[in-house]
């Protein structure tokens, strides 16, 4: 008898019984301890993970639709987590395909419709998918891009305002996370805006309008960075990036 067999034979019966019972509870729907919502959530995560290996675009759309139907109104945070799992696991396989990228984008945008109900970190995580599309060149050209940018830019200002809200409003046990986000996100938002508005067709007027309305402190800085990018000359100092709430 080899060591593996010996180990198997020496397992106490009670442990085996416990393992079978435990496996049974997992099969019944996830790792939760009697929490039906948790079980439904983990079961959906497993379906998404499965689809990341074998699924098709139609599967992704179907899963996305199910996620929205079941969680969007009832639990926007879990809806956002599941959407992130979908786009990070499933869509990422075929994002070069225009149709897949569009489905992923639509899922993110639908989830962002309830951005106000999401923790800011989740709102930011969803926005990063949009920024990634831009960085990877998965955005349309010409007027289609112009329309998309007009739609997307305000989403960034919305998140920017929220991460800049006084940290006292954050849950007490999560202040460090709120501070970290408030420190890091303005740079990301400005980088997105600069990249988005450096891409033709140029529209400085729109960017000036948005900045003036929601982020006047950084208006000149961001506009200068767009110009510098267009002429490949980065400006030197960055302002704070604080929001003027009075104009929100």
């Amino acid at each position, binding site marked *: 008898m080899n*060591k593996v067999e010996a180990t198997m034979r020496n397992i106490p019966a009670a*442990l085996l019984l416990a393992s*079978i019972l435990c496996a049974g509870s997992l099969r019944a729907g*996830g*790792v939760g301890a009697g929490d039906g919502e948790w079980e439904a959530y983990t079961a959906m995560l497993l379906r998404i*993970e499965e689809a990341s290996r074998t699924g098709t675009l139609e599967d992704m759309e179907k899963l996305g639709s199910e996620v929205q139907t079941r969680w969007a109104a009832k639990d926007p945070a879990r809806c956002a*987590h599941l959407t992130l*799992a979908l786009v990070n696991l499933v869509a990422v396989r075929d994002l070069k395909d225009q149709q897949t990228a569009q489905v992923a984008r639509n899922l993110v945008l639908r989830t962002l419709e309830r951005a106000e109900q999401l923790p800011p*970190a989740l709102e930011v995580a969803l926005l990063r998918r949009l920024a990634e599309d831009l960085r990877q060149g998965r955005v349309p050209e010409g007027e289609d891009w112009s329309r998309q940018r007009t739609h997307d830019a305000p989403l960034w200002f919305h998140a920017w305002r929220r991460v800049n809200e006084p940290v006292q409003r954050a849950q007490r046990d999560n202040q460090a*996370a709120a501070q970290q986000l408030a420190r890091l996100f303005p740079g990301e938002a400005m980088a997105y805006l600069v990249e988005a508005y450096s891409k033709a067709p140029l529209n400085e007027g729109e960017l000036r309008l948005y900045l003036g309305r929601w982020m006047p402190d950084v208006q000149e800085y961001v506009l200068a960075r767009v110009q510098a990018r267009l002429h490949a000359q980065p400006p030197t100092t960055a302002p704070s990036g604080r929001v003027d709430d009075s104009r929100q």
Partner: protein
Amino acid sequence: MKFALFVLLIAFAGSYSAAGVPATLPSAEDGQIEFERMSRLIRAMGAARDLEGLRSLAERIQAEWADRSAGAYGQLMFEVVGELSSRQFDDPRQYELMWQWGVRAMERAEQMPLALQADLVRFVQADPKASADAWPQRRGQTIALKFQVWKRIHDAVDQAWDADRDYPRGVPLPPGVGSRAGITDPKQRQEYDAAVAQYRQQAARWSLQRDLRNLEPQIAQDTERAAIWAYSQQPPALGELRSLLGQYVADEAARARILKEAQAHLQPADGARRAPPQPPLEERLRQRRLEGAAP
């Protein structure tokens, strides 16, 4: 893919068992399915950027696997801390959890395959800024864990092993026989089975020694770098480092080198920075994420 990983894990754990390093294994087919399921869930939870979800999974793994199969437990915890290390959660607690779960999993390290110990301990990193008051104690704990793994791997390397001389030779069937089933003489069959069993042991030992010889230089380099970096941070604790080196590092030259480098790069207490030693790769990646580099 995950199933293949699981099979590999069992094979690997078995090979360490054969060399006298204890390894417990997942117990039954149900455990195998459960392991695979948990592994998939960890991956999905990381992709979902659900820090609380990952914490719940880690607690579940601790409760259900720690006493059941050290190898499977270690592998699952490795996957959890891997997700915590590689994903951006926008929450500094991710590194706190990474440290906590990494240290906790290492409590069972001696029952895990050595390669898994080496993988797991790479994610045990204390941060002088994030853990503030706890840093001096965590530094000692972290570096002690790294030294322990290094020592176990070093001790498991058989210096007398020779890759060519010890290469396992296959067991030929008796002349005129096409397969084991064709051996009709019970005594001859018994001898053949014993020879095959011995061959398997030799093969496992050969693979283990080959793997350990590849692993040791990597763990030595990682650990040396981590120790120099940690003990060049404030507050100075070169006495502690000296004591750990004496306890775990047999190589006198390595001991002297680590001490000298840590002392040479000791950061001044006034905050002025000296050119620091290069931190370990995981630490550099973590710092880049904290500084807002792209996810």
